[in-house]
């Protein structure tokens, strides 16, 4: 029943709004009570009590971090395929062939992991 299916999400929507209201009301209360005394020295970024070394904080960052993000993308998409498989696994019409199919799928991805391992992507240099 699609109607009921969506009514469950009404509560979720309300919870979103309630959460936002809670956070924003916290901000609002703080805005009312908290003191404000701005100064140029206070507004510089914290760098252990000294003026930051000239240059932006937003420099290029090492690509090492993104390699993991890309690997994550591969494996998380895999997980998306795995969840429906896991749900229907117990179903009556599912034969054990499904198990072996997923074995092949996971095997390919596992070899992907081993490839990345051998390539040295998992080592941090």
């Amino acid at each position, binding site marked *: 029943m699609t109607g009921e299916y969506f009514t469950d999400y009404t509560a979720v929507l309300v919870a979103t709004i309630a959460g936002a209201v809670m956070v924003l009301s916290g901000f609002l209360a703080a805005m009312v009570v908290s003191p404000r005394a701005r100064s140029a020295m206070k507004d510089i970024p914290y760098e252990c009590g000294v003026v930051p070394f000239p240059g932006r904080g937003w420099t290029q*960052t090492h690509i090492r971090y993104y390699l993991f993000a890309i690997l994550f993308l591969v494996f998380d998409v895999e997980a998306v395929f795995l969840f429906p498989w896991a749900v229907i696994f117990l179903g009556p019409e599912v034969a054990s062939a499904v198990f072996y199919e997923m074995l092949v799928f996971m095997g390919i991805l596992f070899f992907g992991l081993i490839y990345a391992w051998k390539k040295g992507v998992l080592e941090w240099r």
Partner: protein
Amino acid sequence: MTLKTEPIIVNIGPQHPSTHGVFRLRILFDGEVIHDVEPVFGYLHRGSEKLAEERTYTQIVTLTDRLDYLAAMSNNLSYCLSVEKLMGIEAPERAKYIRTIMAELMRISSHLMGLGFFLQDLGAFATPLMYMFREREKIMDLFEMASGARITYTYMRPGGVNDDLPPEFMPALRKFADEMPGYIDEYERLLRENEILITRTKGVGVLPRDLAINGSLSGPALRASGVPWDLRKADPYEVYSRVQFDLPVGQIGDNYDRFLVRLEEMRQSLRIVRQCMQQMPAGPFRADLPMLLRPPKGDAYAHVEGPKGELGFYLVSDGSISPYRCAIRAPSFINLSLLKEMLVGWKIADMITIVGSLDFNMGEVDR
């Protein structure tokens, strides 16, 4: 697979949760890896050496307390030995034993702090540190009995110590000496084979033997690199020639060796304390000296094996009541001279642990 990016310069310190005092490192990072290091000193400079020229020889003892404030007794001892050498006098036997006991207790206390903060730098959320504070507290109680103070003792005087040990001191010390090995065993049991501690310290921050000697390092940092050099053995002062103790020495000079050497040195210090307790004679605790010391013209250098390394005072006298020149060989400062060689190539997290494992004290570095 090598990848290059725009490097980034970050200040670690002077206000950083894990700098030991107000110490600043300007570090060039590429990713997380350190490419260049520039230590910046001087935030805690109080001009102790210059201040000493304006004070009488007895008053300077208070200045030495504030050098390495975690090892004030050792500083007192080094200074007093220097003045005694300058004047050509010697402390009475009992005073020598008292001073040895105090110096060794101070070493235990300082190593406890060093290990505790080293583990804190590793990210063990204050738990080992608080355990070690527990034992340090007992040492500070002992010092309080003897001197009345807990951090800056000013207990020793040229020619002896300020006051004799109170009657309750020796039983308390005996109790401490009996309990402490169990606590050291506890640290060792809890920490020595901890998987994360091993992965974080083993092979990290290796200081080769030759480099350590060339950098004129001293103390546990040098001994961890495999050099059996200890002034207590090499140039015995006070009563160290009459007690038996061993020199723990590391193998390759990484963080783990520095950790283990400190752990073992505490045991050896306890051995010295126990032997001193047995051998300690009765008698005067201070040589009969005038209030205002006027050493003859000349100069003298005396050094002790402080908890952090060779701590020496060089005094030049012009015959007046205050020294013409007082120079301090601060082990913490000299131990930091190889910082760049040790840090380059390691990551942020390793940098913190390597700096922590050197166990320096900014009060002494900046003087």
